[in-house]
């Protein structure tokens, strides 16, 4: 699949040569000895292993740490392409924050009939505990990782919004470090916009969202489920780079109406908690009572305005794939503008006519669970066997509301370096967005994920995908 279609390759036009953003890189590449590049590629792997940039795969032995394969050919965007992308992302992120504030408060979009009320009221990701409260600065999604795919010169689509807890930013930073380390000469020849300010900006952005109760310099901390979590490397990396404490639930408790961490000198109040623990594990008193990862009572402290939780509880509803299908309306409703970035056409299987269509065209479509992520539980129709198709047909019929379907997009490709030559592979892009009360800032570039198998469209690291450094060129 895919490989027999005509894909848009971001580096090479069919027979017409190299696309402009790749001009200088291609010249450099052609002057390089392939043997040296092969050697560099091996060096990169040793570098990642030594620095411990690994992730754990759920369902495998706890001690199993894997590397995400890194490809040394950068994915390059021109400054013009980036400007348009970042405008579209900013518009979308502002709309999502307005939407979240609205559905947890006045619910005007529901009253206006632009989004069906059942989609909110019957949604497991809608948190009644958030009704009627506004987080500090009205920011719900402090950190967003919008997934973008491309199908042509000017065709960018948002695939997912990832407003809940986007991961991967540590790879964006480490990929750049690795490239700087391996090919310093490239960066003196080609001017690439830097990404290394991200941790500093993250800390500033989080601190700017401190609650009103905070006097003086806000204390920020990162909350991790612990060293067995698949993204633990990233949690410790970000805490380290920001110069803040990395805490687990058992380090925290409620002290005098605030959340405080147990230090060697007693309990110290935290003002802003960048949590990488899911909503339902956050507070055993308010959500899952058996959770060991959260802090009993944190929701009460939050509602009393004594801590900022980033991202806010209840933002997950914006990641719902059925809500996603309404995003063009949501953007228009709150910003009064047309969406700059396109949505992928989406069939909501909860609607009988759409379900009918999806069942009839299953082998052409991608079907996803509305709450799914990480590439789990999805069906890629064109790649599925007859057996998988009929199994999925049964699932769809028994619980249609749990699924949406989208056309199989002909994703753009960028070459990877394989056995001394370049070979095209499908990619996506996750830029990282920081939101504070007065600013939305987007780091130029993001994480490019790449399917390493020829023709494959699945780029998720848990499913064998790799990553690339992503360059946005200076003007």
């Amino acid at each position, binding site marked *: 699949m895919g490989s027999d279609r005509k894909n848009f390759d971001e580096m090479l036009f069919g027979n017409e040569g190299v696309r402009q953003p790749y001009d200088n890189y291609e010249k450099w590449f052609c002057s390089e000895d392939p043997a040296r590049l092969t050697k560099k590629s091996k060096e990169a792997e040793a570098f990642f292993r030594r*620095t*411990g940039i690994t992730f754990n795969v759920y369902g495998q032995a706890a001690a199993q740490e894997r590397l995400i394969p890194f490809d040394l050919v950068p994915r390059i965007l021109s400054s013009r392409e980036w400007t348009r992308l970042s405008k579209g992302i900013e518009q979308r992120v502002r709309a999502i924050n307005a939407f979240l504030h609205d559905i947890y408060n006045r619910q005007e979009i529901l009253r206006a009939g632009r989004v069906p009320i059942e989609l909110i009221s019957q949604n497991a990701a809608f948190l009644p505990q958030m009704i009627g409260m506004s987080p500090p600065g009205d920011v719900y999604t402090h950190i967003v990782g919008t997934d973008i795919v491309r199908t042509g010169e000017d065709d960018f689509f948002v695939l997912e919004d990832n407003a809940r807890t986007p991961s991967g930013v540590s790879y964006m930073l480490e990929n750049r470090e690795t490239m700087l380390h391996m090919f310093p000469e490239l960066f003196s020849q080609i001017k690439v916009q830097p990404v290394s300010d991200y941790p500093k900006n993250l800390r500033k952005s989080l601190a700017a969202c401190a609650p009103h109760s905070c006097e003086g310099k806000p204390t920020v901390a990162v909350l991790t489920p612990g060293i067995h979590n698949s993204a633990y490397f990233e949690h410790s990396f970000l*805490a380290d780079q920001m110069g803040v404490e*990395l805490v687990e639930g058992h380090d925290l408790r409620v002290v005098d109406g605030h959340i405080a961490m147990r*230090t*060697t000198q007693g309990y110290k109040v935290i003002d802003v908690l960048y949590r990488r623990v899911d909503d339902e594990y956050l507070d055993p008193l308010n959500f899952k009572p058996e959770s060991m990862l959260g802090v009993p009572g944190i929701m009460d402290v939050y509602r009393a305005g004594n801590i900022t939780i980033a991202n806010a509880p209840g933002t997950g509803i914006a990641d719902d794939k059925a809500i996603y299908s309404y995003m063009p309306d949501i953007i228009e409703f709150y910003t009064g503008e047309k969406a700059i970035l396109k949505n992928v056409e989406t069939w909501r299987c909860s609607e009988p006519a759409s379900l009918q269509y999806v069942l009839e065209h299953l082998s052409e479509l991608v079907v996803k669970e509305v709450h799914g992520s990480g590439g789990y539980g999805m069906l890629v129709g064109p790649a599925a066997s007859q057996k998988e198709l009929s199994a999925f047909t049964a699932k769809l019929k028994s619980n249609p509301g749990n699924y949406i379907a989208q056309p199989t997009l002909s994703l753009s490709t960028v070459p990877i370096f394989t056995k001394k030559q370049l070979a095209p592979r499908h990619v996506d892009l996750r830029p990282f967005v920081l939101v504070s009360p007065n600013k939305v800032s987007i780091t130029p570039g993001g994480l490019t994920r790449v399917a390493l198998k020829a023709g494959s469209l699945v780029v998720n690291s848990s499913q064998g995908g790799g990553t690339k450094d992503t360059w946005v060129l200076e003007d």
Partner: protein
Amino acid sequence: MLGKTAGGLYWMFRFLERGENTARLVEAGFRIALTRSTDSETEWKSVVTTAGVKAGYSAKYETFNAANVVDYLLRDTTNPSSVISVTEKARTNARMVRTALTTEVWESVNENWMTLKSALKKPVKETELPAILGIIRQQSALVRGALHGTMLRNDIFDFAMIGTALERADNTARIIDVKYYTLLPSASFVGSSIDNVQWETVLRSVSAHRAFRWLNESEMTSSTIVEFLILDARFPRSLAFCTKHLVANLGYLAKDYGERLPCHDLADSLQSKLKKNDIGSIFETGLHQFIGDFIRENNAVGAQIELDYRFNG
């Protein structure tokens, strides 16, 4: 600093120190087995006893021989104190306290783990043992070098040093305790070749043979050895040295935090016992008694530190 982080650092460095000491014990045992034809069973047994894992070992093996002991102490993952177990635990702790470590320290601990995991993948053949023990020693030197060369001298460093000092004192004390009978001054044995070999083992187990010889030329008596291992604060594995560093680093914490805690008094009293004794009074009390008390009090300091600095709650 988080209490958990302080605990993670303290244990990380206890584990690293323990791994290195276990390797040293194996090295001494191996040497004795090579240089003496008889009674190596007793020697290996005392190595296992010193490492504090006799119960676990005896549950698995009936006899004490080189192959079994070396395997159990270096690469058996069911032995919580084996080199591979403590190396893995040190690395897990390092991941937990990653934000408190410099890149150099973290990378050296990670590399230590990767290197030893691959070196100890298969049972160690006798011919390979010296090389593998060399690797273990070299890896821990790299970690120590990274720690001393790159870390800020703050509370993080203090907890690392406190863990090292406590563990090392415990190890040296246990070596003396297991061998105390060979170290008792007894006119009839002095100068006999049996004693010489036994003493040599004791000195080698703490890498003290060269230092000792350098200081004492040819004179090797039980009381000079005991004096050296317990009271000579110049030797980095002596009880006096470890305790001095324990007290000093606890002192930096007290100053830094502006607060003296019960663990400071316990450590001071441990040190003053060493200071007010000389080798004569130690033998008078009874070496076994003296060392037994030391081990208990050293452990008590550790337990008090965990409480005072809120490692666990």
